[in-house]
């Protein structure tokens, strides 16, 4: 079972580590935009839409790598290991 992280923690991480990012909800995913990058497959929730759902950490890992975010900053907010 993949490790889960709380979506609110992901937003807090982006607030701190990806200043100026934007997010938008679609039928299937969250679209997160940072600078010229766009990550299009952040889940709405591992078990569907909920208040502060959990999502699988691999999606966040992929987004962090695409955006080139500072690893030390990211680790303060979410555990992606």
């Amino acid at each position, binding site marked *: 079972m*993949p490790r889960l992280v709380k979506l609110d923690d992901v937003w807090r991480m982006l607030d701190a580590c990806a200043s100026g990012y934007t997010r938008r909800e679609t039928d*299937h*995913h969250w*679209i997160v935009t940072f600078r010229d990058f766009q*990550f299009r497959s952040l889940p709405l929730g591992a078990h569907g839409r909920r208040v502060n759902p959990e999502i699988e950490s691999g999606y966040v890992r*992929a987004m*962090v*790598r*695409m955006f*080139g975010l500072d690893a030390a900053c990211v680790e303060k907010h979410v555990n992606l290991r």
Partner: protein
Amino acid sequence: MMTAQDAPAIGAHLPFLFSYRDTLFGNGFVVHVEAKNGRALCVREGDDSWWMYGVNPGGMAAHGDDPHAAHAAFRKTFSDVLLDIAKDTRSFDEFRAQVEKFFEATNAGYEPEWREAAAAVRAGLVSRDGFSVAPADSPRSVAVTLKNSDNVSAIDNVAALKAQLAQAA
């Protein structure tokens, strides 16, 4: 199909090339999308899950219990992204531009590992695990074409079954 005994170790990296075809409805148009030689890196992570990270398109990922399941989830996610783009765009030209931007976006964070993994496959250091092998420099492209009553056929209904996956070498 790999067994538990011969499954790659945690941390294993499998470099893939994929080709997909989708036919879908947009706002006022029907469109065919043919993506060739997209790149993705499949990794067995420390929690024992398999993740398929897009390199091109870089803005997506999916997971499963093994590489085949991860790919099946990746394939579905790719189509879901196209559906999101179709809903968001008002014209064929806008749809095509957004699909091209999505497909060509690179996840530079995984690209070096994808290249290293392809070199390992090429050198025979990585099990092929039953996957076919294709040259790592196979030309990548995405073609977005308008469909109309003259160029639709029943074969469009099974486009989603035509996914092709190969290890890059």
